[in-house]
């Protein structure tokens, strides 16, 4: 598995192929379709990430020393955003997820979604994924 940094750069390169926002959004919507979908049994209210206008459920498991994320959302743009995050962070070691930076979101032209007041709650998603990683890290230690 490639390092988080490499995958993030790869995603940035892919998005750079498009010259307008519409194509970027269309690509993001496509990525949403490849999201490793959360098992229905985990789509419970306590797994909903707060701060999103749409519903986002995230589940995390530790497989060996790597974190596997699955997720879903009832809005497809939100699903695309979470898919991008999970593509970079799923299958990585907890410590690497904790340390991962999120500048690549800005670089792929989705900066507006990083505002804390933005209704999609990307900031909340990032925080939640890191919280899971932190919990697993303390288990390992």
């Amino acid at each position: 598995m490639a390092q988080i940094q490499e995958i993030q750069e790869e995603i940035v390169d892919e998005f750079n192929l498009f010259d307008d926002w519409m194509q970027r959004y269309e690509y993001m919507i496509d990525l949403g379709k490849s999201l490793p979908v959360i098992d229905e049994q985990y789509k419970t209210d306590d797994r909903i990430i707060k701060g999103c206008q749409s519903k986002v459920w995230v589940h995390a498991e530790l497989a060996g020393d790597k974190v596997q994320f699955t997720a879903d959302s009832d809005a497809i743009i939100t699903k695309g955003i979470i898919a991008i995050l999970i593509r970079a962070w799923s299958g990585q070691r907890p410590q690497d997820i904790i340390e991962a930076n999120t500048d690549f979101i800005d670089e792929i032209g989705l900066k507006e979604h990083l505002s804390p007041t933005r209704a999609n709650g990307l900031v909340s998603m990032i925080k939640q994924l890191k919280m899971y990683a932190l919990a697993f890290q303390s288990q390992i230690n």
Partner: protein
Amino acid sequence: MLDIAKVRAQFPILKREVNGKPLVYFDNAATSQKPQVVIDAIVDYYSNYNANIHRGVHALSQEATDVYEAARENVRAFFNIPLAKQTLFTSGNTHSINAVASGAHVFVKEGDEVIVSAVEHHSNIVPWQMLCERVGAHLKVIPVLDNGTLDMDAYQQLLNDKTAFVVVNHVSNALGVTNPVAEIIKRAHAVNALVLIDGAQSCGHMKVDVQALDADFYTMSGHKMCGPTGIGILYGKEHLLNELPPYQGGGEMIDQVSFEKTTYAGLPHKFEAGTPNICGGIALGAAVDYLNEVGMDNIAAYEHELLVYGTEQLKKIDGITIYGDVPDKAAVISFNVSSIHPYDIGTIVDKLGIAVRTGHHCAQPVMTRFNIPGTVRASFAFYNTKEEIDVMVQAMQRAVMMLS
């Protein structure tokens, strides 16, 4: 008749672009834009006669007091409120409602019933829930029919001699439907219940005459009627405002203060503790002048034209469902397209320069009633145009194509 080009020229913000596109502002139910005269009134106050009011003997204080009180008089006349002292300045509609609900234990006793409607904004639900919890009263709900109107038969059934208060909005913020408030008030009065009407969505869009309605309390929001944020109005019948205890203690609201006993000032000061939003009140006065100049009849007629046109055009989108599609409504269209999440549509059309609201509009019970996560809400004002509606419909179609 409105001269739209002239009207639009008075709103500086309408000249700006968003995401490289001319702004199409259809979030007027959240807040209205401000004409230059209102912006000028704010600048003029701070530039030329900023002073604290009602207390100073110096010239600036006198001048600021005079303009502030003239603004109150403007607002009084605008809503046909009998007396200036019944025209209370608050920080906004939510403050107005809370000022009544927090003191309403003098009207609502243990075992009494308070009726709200199922289409209320959270700000007209929660204060009454808090009141009911405090005094041991019961909250009853007028259900909403599939077409977004209130179930008036069910309302009649809810009314009885235990009904102490009825609170309903004049226009629903989530659906735009105009409620038959005159009839609601008449029936409530028949069982000796008091009525508060939440006018956040009616003020600035239609002529409101609180005396003709016979409302006991009526609340308004300044920023939804071309005024600034942080200013609102509470109207109440004089004897009720006299009975209602003050909401906040502090300066201005007192008559005499000693550590043994404080006596309160008369109306309106009893409800205006502390230094008020002087600038906000003055600018709201300017907004009312402006609305009068444009003419409320003109505004209502033109906005209705936009509503009819917008509804007609949006219906051309395959799979659209409009909630509250009835003739008697304000220029608000709340809708979904197929099963596309409203958030997705809002995000795409924002990229195209169009400001609509998405989500539950602070009216979660309405969304639960229709079993939807939220809606897309386009709300028009008299400075909007049919051309803008065309741009929005095109943008919606583009979004639907991307998202289906």
